[in-house]
């Protein structure tokens, strides 16, 4: 016991002080769109990214002269194929871990309207600003569950933000759903939701939970949680990085930590 204590003291503090930092160079995040026109140099249409995308997340509108492309992060599994094939630099890797949103349509990016002002969402649950108890229901391949588990390790330490994972829906405030919610889990998920007392909200964690991801379109009806229950926060990624998960949870809480994050970001931008 003493050995363990002295070992732990020797280890020091592993917890990261910087919150939701960008991913290191060379690590794949989700893609993002830039202002670069989506047309070949000779003005012909390029369709490489849409062809390469394994989940049909990319749509190309050919009628426009500049070349319009839209990208649905809710279907994107972050495989990076589109970034690899894009000849014009219209689609690039996005190292940001702050990718969660509150409205489904905010996940659909396009290169013709890059500066969508961030929608101001009216506060729903000021109750949960300081702490939130989450019930996690897994219906998928376990990657998102493991990243959520990793968010609880000493490096990310999700509990310092007041976020706890609880063992019963009876004392949960939010329901975190991972996986594509195929037929086998639909009844169990619904009854778990019913067992929660109001106010309650649902977080769709990972691309499968948002849209079904790679599993969409089969006989098992695996197309995400939204068809069954209303979602209030979407965390895209396959799986999302633990920081992305923490950011999404803070968004669901409307936590004060978020405003600190954005002011820091503004400062660092002003400095550069």
């Amino acid at each position, binding site marked *: 016991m003493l050995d363990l204590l002295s070992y732990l003291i020797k280890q020091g503090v592993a917890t990261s002080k910087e919150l939701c930092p960008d991913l290191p160079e060379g*690590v794949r995040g989700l893609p993002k769109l830039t202002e670069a026109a989506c047309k070949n140099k000779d003005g012909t249409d390029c369709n490489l990214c849409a062809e390469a995308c394994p989940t049909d997340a990319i749509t190309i509108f050919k009628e426009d002269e500049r070349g319009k492309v839209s990208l649905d992060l809710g279907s994107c599994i972050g495989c990076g194929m589109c970034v690899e094939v894009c000849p014009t630099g219209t689609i690039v890797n996005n190292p940001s871990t702050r990718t969660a949103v509150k409205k489904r349509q905010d996940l659909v990016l396009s290169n013709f309207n890059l500066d969508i002002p961030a929608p101001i969402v009216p506060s729903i649950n000021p109750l949960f600003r300081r702490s939130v108890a989450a019930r996690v229901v897994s*219906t998928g391949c376990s990657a998102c569950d493991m990243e959520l588990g990793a968010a609880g390790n000493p490096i990310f330490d999700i509990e310092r933000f007041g976020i706890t994972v609880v063992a019963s829906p009876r004392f949960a405030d939010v329901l975190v759903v991972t996986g594509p919610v195929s037929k086998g889990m639909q009844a169990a998920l619904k009854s778990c939701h019913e067992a929660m007392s109001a106010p309650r909200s649902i977080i769709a964690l990972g691309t499968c939970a948002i849209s079904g991801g790679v599993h969409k379109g089969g006989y098992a009806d695996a197309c995400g949680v939204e068809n069954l229950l209303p979602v209030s926060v979407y965390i895209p990624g396959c799986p999302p990085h633990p920081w992305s998960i923490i950011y999404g949870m803070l968004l669901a809480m409307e936590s004060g930590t978020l405003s600190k994050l954005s002011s820091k970001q503004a400062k660092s931008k002003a400095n550069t």
Partner: protein
Amino acid sequence: MQVERIPSTFADLNVVLKERLGRLGHFTSIDGSQLIALILYPHEGKASLLEIPLEGANSYHSLTPHHAQLHWFERATYDMFGILPEGHPRFKHIYMHDPYEENFFPLRRVHLPENFQSPIKRHFSFLEVKGEGVYELPVGPIHAGIIEPGHFRFSCYGETIVNLEIQLGYVHRGVEKRLTEVALPRMHFIAEAVASDTAAANALAHAEAIESMLEIAVSERSKYLRSMALEIERLAMHIIDVGGIATDIGLLGISSTMGRLRGKALGLGDMLAGSRFLRGFIVPGGVRAAGRSLSNFKSQITILRHELKEPLNMFLDNQMALERMREIGVLKNSLCREFGMVGPAARASGEAYDTRQHFPHGAYPAMAPPVVTAKDGDILAREMVRIKEIWSTLDTLDRLIDNLPEGQTQMEVPDKLPANKIGLGVVEAFRGELVHLVLSGPKGEVLRYAIKHPSFNNWTALAIAIRNNLIADFPLCNKSFSLSYSGNDL
């Protein structure tokens, strides 16, 4: 891997299984008009596919009463194809429960007989243990922590578990069917999402299967990089599995240290593949290099080896931990063989079977580490195997990076499969033998994509090992088998 296709009979299969001429790698059907049994011959590094035609029939005499390892295979084959194993001792659905329509068999291509009526209900009927003082304890499908869903039905007498029946299938996503529907370049994204804790192993088994059909050999460098991905996955998962045992015992200091060190192992994945879960790295034709320098790789392994030593030693020195693991959840070698268990769970019961030694995948068998085994078959034995494998995996990674050949990492792959071919990938995932079997039709379309995840063999082991143990020991025993729900449910 090349597979020989042999027209066969039930009598032949009986002999192979009875005489243990080979291991049963898979047992299923192609379209509902035949049964196929994949037989692996570890010592020759070969495989054959026994094909037993049903000649228009829809049923056969169940083989389970004589060969217990077919128990789940026959149930799964009924779920997918509607082929009835008559006389199966515990015949019920495995993947498809209440929400599915009667008489719906997703992979069946031949017509069902007229007036066919399924003899079993979709609703799962659990084995009832009767007697004074016996009670049932239902757990799941949603569990208390952050884990995948499955239902456990314990029949207990006092605190002792008399019987455990496991109902899975809650995360059945229809992966095998999806894999026959999408174009070749998209397949590997689905294949690796079968179970993402095994993403690298699934991607490798898929790539090996597809490459054997296309008859292409990848570069030596690709082979080494693939093995590195597989070993990083094993390392990360073994570390977190030992951490999970520490959590359940209550050694929170060790479990949080293991959580932190797993992060370092995942960092190796980031370095190699640009993805913590090594997603999208191993593809048919080679690997997709992340373009990051591997110059720090070796020093990271050295640091990890150094950092792991102290917490692992403390874990194994802790009397409380040892008491919780010793002689609990014992899986006897005889039962282990009878039920065809694989991976660390089987090695902890004395089965020296590691596919890295026998079947070519990645840089194996040339770079395969020695097989780690233990005798006792209890939780402690499984953890000892796991911990020894952490060290052997670190050594293997060292050897792989030291001998990493130069060369290309990707080669052109046609976007269509050749006609009437069989592809096979057998990979040692961190849970054991993982099989991807692909059969193409006359137009190069995928007729059948069959996956056998190691957990499919090993779930039964948990139900056997927990008998006559205390209910309080179940979480620990469950964790020591480290089973995948999604890999089993497909």
